[in-house]
């Protein structure tokens, strides 16, 4: 997922840099995960709609519902790797989050640099 979100830039990185980015990506979102889940998901209900598996790809469809906003479709796109599944993308109400992060990362790299992106991700929320 870290790779997907970085787009073309990923292949320009050394394995060490790739690992660094993946860790940073994971940390960043684990952090917003705990903040957001504790704050908001408490009042939302997740309902499971269905899943479809096509070879090594799978799609899991869910709805997040709340009194306030009604139903929000959330799809998880998974890819089979070895004996496990990894999430490749999460599509919330039509918005691919991997795609969204790729555009954000791409803009920072284009307007400043990859180093600037790393810097921003490191210092986020501080």
């Amino acid at each position: 997922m870290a790779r997907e979100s970085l787009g073309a830039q990923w292949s320009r990185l050394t394995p060490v840099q790739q690992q660094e980015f993946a860790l940073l990506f994971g940390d960043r979102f684990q952090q917003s995960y705990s903040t957001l889940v504790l704050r908001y998901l408490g009042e939302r209900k997740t309902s499971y709609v269905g899943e479809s598996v096509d070879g090594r790809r799978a799609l899991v469809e869910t709805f997040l519902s709340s009194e306030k906003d009604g139903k929000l479709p959330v799809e998880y796109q998974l890819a089979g790797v070895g004996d496990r599944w990894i999430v490749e993308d999460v599509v919330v109400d039509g918005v691919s989050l991997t795609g969204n992060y790729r555009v954000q990362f791409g803009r920072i790299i284009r307007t400043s640099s990859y180093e600037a992106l790393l810097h921003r991700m490191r210092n986020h929320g501080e």
Partner: protein
Amino acid sequence: MRFDSGTSMARFVMLLAVGSVALAGCAVLGRGADMRTASLGPTDDVSAEAQDYDPWERFNERTFDFNHKLDHYVIKPVATGWSKIAPEPVRNGMRNMLQNVAMPRRFINNLFQLKLKGAMEELVGFVINSTVGVGGLVDVMREADLAAPDAEDTGQTLGVYGIGPGPYLVLPFFPPSSLRDTIGSTIDGFLDPVTFFMPFVGGIAKRGFTSINDRSRNLEEFEAVEESVVDLYSAVRNGYLQRRERAIRE
């Protein structure tokens, strides 16, 4: 889903907030695995930004920044005040009422897109919500899970007939849009009973109130989004364009 373009910003913000949660979950799940599978499949070499057509970025960036400050210094404080005066059910009721009144726009655009079922559902929904739902305060159709036709608008109708979004466009005091959708929203204004009968004052008052009311219902979500993105401008732009594309396909 039955949501109005007027609330699309608030809703978008909400979904980004929720979405980041989902993504966070995935980042955690996929952690470690990502590195080992780095060679899986070709990496998309097409410039990621190519898909978001934004030739007026310099202008948009400035207006986006202006709108952001406007939100921070005016809209949010007023919305916070409003949320203290009006309890949540009242604010939700107001939202429902404003959406119910905007039925003509959705109805006509369902017709133009030959979505006859959607058009019928809009009509039936309007009658039921206006009567059983006490003048639209309660969205009976949604509460009862009866029907939730897509909220069609003129921008989508133009899209269905093959007109692309054109350049991304952010105007001061307006939510993010595109050239096509700005033209669409202008036409939608004529299909809105409030702005139709009171074009100028009514339109501004309604838009102002809708913004405040929507914001009051999403006070914390916005901050959560700001915290969870690394580049707010492109996150919002991409989210807007992706959602519109999907809405047109559906």
